[in-house]
């Protein structure tokens, strides 16, 4: 399923924040799948970056975050067509 939000949808305002987050993280990038976890009380946003791609996973803090990081690293590496 794919949903394309209209530019006037209230979520569209997040674009600027997401872009800022990407710019911040790219400076600290060392390996594909470099991760950052941002905690919002009971939610956690796990962010993976690799080149032009950023993967964000929003989850409850009760999930196995190590497993989220492991899977995310593999996904971002595959998305960026890393050969391994």
């Amino acid at each position, binding site marked *: 399923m794919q949903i394309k939000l209209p530019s006037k949808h209230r979520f569209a305002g997040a674009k600027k924040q997401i872009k800022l987050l990407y710019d911040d993280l790219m400076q600290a990038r060392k*390996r594909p*799948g470099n991760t950052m976890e941002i905690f919002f009380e009971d939610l956690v946003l796990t962010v993976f970056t690799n080149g032009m791609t950023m993967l964000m996973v929003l989850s409850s803090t009760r999930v*196995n975050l*190590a497993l989220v990081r*492991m899977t995310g*690293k*593999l996904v971002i590496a595959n998305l960026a067509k*890393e*050969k*391994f």
Partner: protein
Amino acid sequence: MNQDISGGLDTTRCPEIVKILSLGKRSGRLSLSNGSQSGSIFFRDGEIIHAQCGALQGAKAVYELAVWTSGEYRFSVDEMPDAVTVELSVDEILAEATNRIRQMDRVVSLIPSSTIVYSFDPEIKEKEIVLKSIQWKILSQIDGKKTIADVAQNTGLGVSDTMKVFYTLVKSGLLHEAYPSEAESPADMVDLPETPFMRALKDDLTKAIGPVAPFIIIETAQDMGLDLLADDLEQKAALIETISNKIPSETMSLQFLDTMTDWINTEEI
């Protein structure tokens, strides 16, 4: 001065021969042999244009040959190479070679031969040891059986460079000379719990970083305060993820993560 020359490296070391050939503006091939290895340096009008020693080529090969203290050499007039791999002047090469000889003299005082076998020291005294990737590369080859020369061949490094890395590892207390009774591998020296998870973790990590894997598992678990016997998915995932960050090669790290994620998905979820 057109005749071939030959002699022993115990009386005249490679840099001295290079200097003589350079001053005489000679062209040809200087072949050296130390019994177990051989190499060549090619000259054109007194300048070094190509060198080879095992897998090494160019200036690195000259530096390797420069530290030999025994063996024989022979200069054959007008033999020319197929390739040109050296761009540096003879003076530049000799300056670096002299530097390396000085370093090797210090190394040889601790490690007298490349035929010595080293194994892990199970009683590491340092609280924290930071390793360079080249040290990791060498450590991953340590199994209590391979000689320094074997390790040099497997890693593609020169014997002298490999000996220098061994020197740093022995100095930091990570390795000690193996005795004949220590033929067992490091993996046998460390007691990991016999669980399916530990077996999978050890096997996959060994593929990534070699026989040092059990040490890394135990050290990481201790640092994280984890119980290796605990049947806890969260702990297992955290251990896998932390260990994957310690694998120097990005490719191997991702391969390890991939295999262990598959294992967890199959066995635990």
